[in-house]
Each structure stands twice: as structure tokens, then as C-alpha cells.
């Protein structure tokens, strides 16, 4: 069957279209995966417009959408730098600042933004000062949201160990008509029992309950597990000290403690592994790498184990 001239043109045009489209995609793929070509040309590492006022004007009033874009960019930036183990988070604070100045009511940017900024690497950017500024700006523009007072108090508690300011933040949050049931208790406990396990447990419980974000919840769970281990190790070491006081020597094994009536059964960590009694009377966990953030039960000189890298921050709210 003979093809008409128009048919031939259509065929050739369709072939060229498909070929060039495939070629363009393939070329872009090569560019994306060639570190030599991409060096110094990553758009993610550039902040083309750093003034929120200019951006606000350029947006012609559609600031909400622009703020959402900048927030997404901040999340992606943090995720990529965190995943690449870069330790360089210099754009994170400006991105969050622009986001919140474009939309001062964008609560996730304060809550999660502070969570990205404050913790030391590798968990975060190690910029607690920037996190504090961000949350303060959030409180100033959203004085009716108890979560921001909670974030402020939490930041003072965990990063600055400033229990008086933490108590003040919890107290201000507790006064709001809609607030967490834990806020008044936290405000009260912070003054007298700031360093105690129950206070820390309540803080992490509130964190867990006040977010739907999977990464934050997982982090809170891991801290709660670590707190349990720290508390149990502390209690066991107190028991060992009492045994020594009573018998004049250290126990040789957990069975000695059980026989003396100090404990019932073999105590185990939340992962189900029995605690080890060391010859010097210290208590250690079986596998320190399994339980993140613990400060007790570690071999001498060991640093608190940190969780492994995650691919990208992701939400489970849907």
C-alpha cells in the first residue's frame, strides 16, 4: 500500500518527535548523574532571591502558594543535605525565614523547621540559635497556638538547658484556652524536677501526641525507649550499690541480686536483651547500637548511638 505525501510527513514528524523526546530525557539523565558536569551548578544550593519583601511583591499577593513552595524547598534541602551527610545546612535558616515571613501562619514550618535546625548533626543542622529565633517569630505571629510555646519550652529544655525559660514558655502555653493536658504539668515540673526522667518522658510523650509526622514520632519513640533504658540502668546501678553496701562486695551476676531479693527475674532492655552486669558494678546494654540516644548503659567513653540515615523526610498524615 502506497503512503500519501501527507502520511509520510506525519510518520517522519512522529518519529522525530519521539526520538528527540527520548534523546532529551536521556541527555538530562546523563547530566543529572554526572558529578563532574553538575559540580557547582546545583540549583538547590542557591538562594536566588533572599529578601522576603521582594518575593512578596513578585508573588503579586499569592504569598501562600510561594510560602508552600519555599517550605517544600526547605524540607527537600534538609532531606538532601542530611541524606548526603553533608553537614552543610547554611541555606536552611534563610529558607525557613523566607517561608515564615511569606506566611507567618505556616505552623509546620516552625514546628518541623526548629526540629531540623536545632539538633546536633547528624540528626539536625546544629543551629539551636536559629531554631530559637524561628520559634520566637512563630510565637509572636501565632500567640494562640500552644504547640509553639511547647516547641519553645522544649528547645530551651533540650538545647539550652535553660529550665527557667522552658518553664516560662510552658506556663504561657498552659494559659491558652486550647492546650495540651501536659502543658500545666510541664510548667509545674520544669521548675523543680527539670532534670528528672518523668519530666523528660512527659516532654517526649507530648511531642509524640502533638504531631502526625512519622519522622518526628519515630524520633520521640526512640527517645522514650532511651529514657526507659537510662532510667532502668540508673535503678539497677543503685541496686548494685545497695548490694555492695549490704554484702561488702560487688555482685558477681544478676542472679546474686535476685537471690538477695533486690530484683525479680533477669532485667531486660526494651529490645528484650538482658542487661549485663560488668565486673566494676556498672550496668551495660547488650548491643548499644540497637538503642539510640541512650546516655547510660554504654561502655566507658562510648558516645550515645545515633539512628542511621533516612532517605527523605516523609509524612504519614495522609
Amino acid at each position, binding site marked *: 500500500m502506497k503512503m500519501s505525501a501527507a502520511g509520510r510527513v506525519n510518520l517522519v514528524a512522529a518519529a522525530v518527535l519521539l526520538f528527540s523526546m527520548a534523546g532529551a530525557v536521556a541527555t538530562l539523565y546523563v547530566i543529572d548523574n554526572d558529578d563532574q558536569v553538575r559540580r557547582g551548578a546545583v540549583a538547590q544550593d542557591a538562594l536566588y532571591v533572599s529578601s522576603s519583601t521582594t518575593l512578596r511583591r513578585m508573588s503579586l499577593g499569592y504569598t501562600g502558594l510561594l510560602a508552600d513552595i519555599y517550605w517544600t524547598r526547605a524540607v527537600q534541602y534538609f532531606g538532601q543535605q542530611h541524606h548526603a551527610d553533608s553537614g552543610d545546612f547554611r541555606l536552611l535558616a534563610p529558607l525557613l525565614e523566607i517561608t515564615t515571613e511569606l*506566611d507567618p501562619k505556616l505552623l509546620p514550618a516552625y514546628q518541623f523547621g526548629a526540629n531540623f535546625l536545632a539538633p546536633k548533626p547528624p540528626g539536625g543542622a546544629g543551629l539551636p540559635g536559629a531554631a530559637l529565633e524561628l520559634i520566637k517569630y512563630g510565637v509572636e505571629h501565632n500567640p494562640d497556638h500552644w504547640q509553639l510555646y511547647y516547641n519553645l519550652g522544649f528547645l530551651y529544655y533540650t538545647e539550652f538547658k535553660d529550665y527557667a525559660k522552658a518553664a516560662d514558655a510552658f506556663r504561657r502555653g498552659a494559659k491558652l484556652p486550647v492546650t495540651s493536658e501536659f502543658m500545666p504539668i510541664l510548667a509545674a515540673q520544669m521548675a523543680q524536677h527539670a532534670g528528672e526522667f518523668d519530666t523528660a518522658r512527659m516532654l517526649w510523650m507530648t511531642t509524640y501526641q502533638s504531631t502526625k509526622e512519622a519522622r518526628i514520632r519515630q524520633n520521640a519513640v526512640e527517645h522514650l525507649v532511651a529514657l526507659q533504658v537510662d532510667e532502668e540502668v540508673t535503678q539497677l546501678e543503685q541496686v548494685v550499690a545497695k548490694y555492695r553496701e549490704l554484702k561488702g562486695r560487688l555482685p558477681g551476676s544478676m542472679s546474686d541480686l535476685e537471690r538477695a531479693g533486690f530484683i525479680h527475674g533477669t532485667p531486660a532492655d526494651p529490645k528484650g536483651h538482658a542487661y549485663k552486669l560488668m565486673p566494676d558494678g556498672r550496668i551495660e546494654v547488650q548491643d548499644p547500637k540497637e538503642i539510640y540516644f541512650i546516655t547510660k548503659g554504654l561502655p566507658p567513653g562510648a558516645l550515645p548511638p545515633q539512628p542511621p540515615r533516612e532517605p527523605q523526610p516523609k509524612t504519614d498524615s495522609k
Partner: protein
Amino acid sequence: MNPGPTNARIGYIAFNTFREAVRDRVLYNLIAFALLLSGAAIIVGEISIDIERLVVVNLGLTAVSLFGVVIAIFIGIGLVSKEIDKRTLYTVLSRPVRRWEFVLGKFLGLTGTLVVNTFFMAIGVFLALLYVADKFEKMDLWVLVALYFIVLQFLIVCALALFFSSFSTPLMSAVFTFALFVIGSLAEDMRGFARTTHGVAGWLATAIAYLVPNFSALNVISQVAHGDPVPGRLILYNTVYALLYSAMAISGAVLIFQRRNLK
């Protein structure tokens, strides 16, 4: 054309304008809108944190507004000139149709097209909201107010496009209308500038600030995205303002079109 009463004649022109816009595949933009919104609703949960609802409202309403403004400008500027180029205007005006009826009919036809377009887009926004939030909340009602303000915005843009097209070329009309849209979107900055300027410059700046359309007061997208209520007074003021401003621009268009030599 059936001569009939004025209302019938205006309605006939409006209906034909609407039909022509539909024939020009204007409503095809709904496909792009649907793809944009459904794509955003699905993807944003994967690439961002905790802003699914905000993105649907912000992106949805911004798209409704910008798509509508673009349609208003590009159709509005051709409403008169196209009829002259195609010489259909002479046929219309040779019948017992007054020029002002023609202008008003065109205006109502275009705004009608945009209202229908906005209606379908609004359905898209609410479906996307339902997808990301699983259920509607009371605060979603404020999205309707934002959509109403967007329609008011279209009234003004359509009127301006028609006004400029009554005496200028389509290209220049598009430039003038778009420039006024940009300036009007920065109306609050302009009034702020006027307040800080004194003397003649101050008077001039104040006059310009009050004469250009104030689109910033009509933009409550960010506010409703957070579920913040819109005061009833603002709804009333914006309605009155948009109607008066549109009436002003349409009257201007009628005045010019009445005097225009169409031979």
C-alpha cells in the same frame, strides 16, 4: 436577531459571547487545572510535610485566579476588535441593538464564561480537599468566600480589558490590562508609598493609589487556607467596590465606543 426588550438583547449577546468562548475551547484550561491540582494533591504529601491541605487551597485558588485573569485578558481584549475584524459587528449594529447594549452583553458573556469556568474549578478544589483531608471541615466554607472574591476580581479585569479594547489594539489592551492587574495586586504597597510621600507628589501618589483597581483586598487566599474567617464587612465592601469599579470601566468603554467611528 429578535429585537425584543433591552434585557433580551443584552442576554442574547452575552449568550453568544459565552457560546463563542466555549467554541474557542476556553474551557480546555479545566483539563490543565485538573491535572495540576490532582498532581499537587498526590505529590505534595511525598515531597513536603504537613501542608497537603494548604497546598490544595493555595495552589487551587491561585490557579483559579490566574487562569481566569489570563482568560479574561485574552478574550476581553478581542471582544470588540474581533467583531470589527470579522465585520460581524456591523451586522449586529445594523439591527436594533444599541452600542452600550453590545458592550454590556459582551461583558456579561465573558464574566459568565469565567463564572462557569470557576464553578468547575471550585468543584476540583473541593474534590482535592476531600482527597487530602478525607472529610470537609467547617473552615472549608471560607474557600467559597475566596472563590467569590476571585469572581469579583474577574469582573474588574473583564471590564478593564473591554475598556482598553474599546479604543486600543488587542496587543496594547493586553499590556494595559495586565499592567493594571500587576499594579492593582500591589495596591497596598502603593498606598503605603502614598502615605509616606508629601506635597504634590503625595497627592498624585494618593490619587493613583485610589484610582488603580485594588486587587490585594480581593485576595484572601492565604487567609482562608489557614481557615481564618473573612469579616462580613469585607465581603460587603469588596462586592460594592468590584461592582462600582466594573461599572466605571464599562461606562468608560461605552462612552468611547459610542463615539468611535466604525466606518
